[in-house]
C-alpha cells in the first residue's frame, strides 16, 4: 500500500518538479519580487512532499520486513513438522513390530507351552531385541545430530579421502552396473580439515548417488581447486531432483526412500559438517538429468 503511494509520488514528481522549476524561473525573470516568494513556497512544498514521501517508503520497507519474517517463521514451522513426522515415522515402524511380537508372546504364554511355542517366543524375543536396537540407532543418530562433535583439523589429501570412500562403495557399484569416472586434479593442495567427518560426508553423497542409480549409470567424481577452496563434485546420471525437492533434501528426516534404506539424515548431517568446516555444499539438478553435489572446503582453516 505505502509502496504503491510512494511510487505514484515519484512518477508524479518526475514531471511536476522540472515543470514547476521552469515556471518559477520564468516568473523570477519577469517579476523578481513575487518570483522570490513563489520560489520559497515551492521549496516548502518540495520539502514537505519529500518528507512524507520518505515516510511512506519507510513504512513500506517495514511492511516488507514483516512479511519476510512471517515467511521465515512459517518455513521453520514447516521444517519442524517435517522433522516430527520423520521421527514419528521412523520410531513407529519398529514400535509396531514390537507390539505385535509382544502380543504374540502373551498369547503363547496363556496355555502350557509346547516346544513349538517356546521356540516361537524365542523368535519373538529376537525380533524385539532387533527392533529395540533399531530404535536406539535412531535416537543415537538424533543425538549425534543434536550435539555433533566439534571438528579437529589436521592435514589431509582430499583425493585420497575420496579414493578410500570410493573403494568402500565399489562392490555395490559393480553389482549394480554403475561405472565410476574419476577426474582428479593432480595438483590439489593439501587441506586443513577433519578427515573422519569429511569421509562421512563423501560416503553419504556416494551412497545417495549409488541409490539413485538403481538401473545402472555413471558417477563422475571430480576434484579441483579454485579461489582458496578445494572442491569435490559428485555427479550421477540418475533421475535427478525437482526444484521443489531441492528446497527440502537438506532438511533432517526428509527422505523419499523406503524405511530401512534411508533415514533422511544423510544430507542434513553432511551439510552441517561441511558448514562447521567452513565450507558449503552446492546442489544442481533437473529431473531426468541427474544430480550434481559440490562440496567446497577452504584450504586453510
Amino acid at each position, binding site marked *: 500500500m505505502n509502496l504503491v503511494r510512494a511510487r505514484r509520488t515519484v512518477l508524479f514528481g518526475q514531471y511536476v518538479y522540472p515543470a514547476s522549476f521552469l515556471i518559477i524561473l520564468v516568473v523570477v525573470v519577469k517579476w523578481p519580487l513575487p518570483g522570490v516568494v513563489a520560489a520559497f513556497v515551492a521549496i516548502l512544498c518540495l520539502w514537505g512532499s519529500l518528507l512524507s514521501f520518505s515516510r511512506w517508503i519507510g513504512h513500506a520497507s517495514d511492511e516488507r520486513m514483516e512479511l519476510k519474517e512471517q515467511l521465515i517463521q512459517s518455513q521453520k514451522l514447516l521444517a519442524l513438522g517435517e522433522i516430527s513426522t520423520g521421527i514419528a515415522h521412523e520410531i513407529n515402524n519398529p514400535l509396531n513390530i514390537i507390539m505385535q511380537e509382544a502380543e504374540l508372546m502373551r498369547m503363547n504364554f496363556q496355555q502350557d507351552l509346547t516346544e513349538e511355542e517356546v521356540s516361537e517366543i524365542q523368535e519373538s524375543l529376537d525380533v524385539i531385541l532387533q527392533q529395540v536396537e533399531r530404535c536406539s540407532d535412531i535416537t543415537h543418530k538424533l543425538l549425534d545430530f543434536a550435539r555433533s562433535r566439534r571438528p579437529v583439523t*589436521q592435514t589431509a589429501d582430499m583425493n585420497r579421502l575420496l579414493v578410500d570412500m570410493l573403494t568402500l562403495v565399489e562392490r555395490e557399484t559393480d553389482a549394480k552396473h554403475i561405472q565410476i569416472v574419476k577426474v582428479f586434479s593432480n595438483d590439489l593442495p593439501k587441506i586443513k580439515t577433519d578427515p573422519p567427518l569429511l569421509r*562421512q560426508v563423501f560416503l553419504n553423497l556416494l551412497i545417495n548417488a549409488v541409490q539413485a542409480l538403481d538401473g545402472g549409470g555413471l558417477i563422475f567424481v571430480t576434484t579441483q581447486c579454485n579461489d582458496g577452496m578445494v572442491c569435490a563434485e559428485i555427479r550421477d546420471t540418475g533421475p535427478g531432483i525437482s526444484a521443489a525437492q531441492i528446497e527440502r533434501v537438506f532438511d533432517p528426516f526428509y527422505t523419499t526412500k523406503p524405511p530401512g534404506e534411508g533415514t533422511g539424515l544423510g544430507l542434513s548431517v553432511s551439510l552441517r559438517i561441511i558448514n562447521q568446516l567452513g565450507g558449503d555444499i552446492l546442489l544442481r539438478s533437473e529431473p531426468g538429468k541427474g544430480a550434481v553435489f559440490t562440496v567446497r572446503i577452504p584450504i586453510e582453516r
Partner: protein
Amino acid sequence: MSRIRILVVDDEPDFLKLIQRRLGKRNVDVSVAASGQEALQALDVIPVDVVILDVRMPGLGGIETLKEIRKRHQEVEVIMLTGHGSMQSGIEGISHGAYDYILKPFSIEDLLERIRDAHEHAVLKRNARKVS
C-alpha cells in the same frame, strides 16, 4: 615423539601375534584383545590412542564394539579392519564415527600411516578439550 599406543582387536590369534611383532619395531606399543568384550575391558584399564578393530568377530561384533567405544572413550580413535566381503561394515563404521578403515590384506606401511594420522587426530582432540 611419544610412542603410539594401540589396541588391536581380532579373533585370529595368529594375526594378533604377527601385528604385535611387526608394529612393535616401529615405535608403536601394541596391546591385543581377542574379542569386542575383551577390548572394552582392556580400554578401561590401559591408556590407548588408537584401536584397530576387526569388523567381523563372533560375540560382540565390530560395529557394536565401535559404538560402545565411542560412547565410553571419546578420546580414542578407531580404525576398522574390513575384508572384501565386509565392505558394508566398513561403511557403517565410517558412518558411526570410525576415524578410518583399512582393507585386508594391507601393507604394514599403509596401516602405519593411517595409525599415525589417527594418533595425531586423537592428540589434537585431547588438546582441544583441555583448552576449552
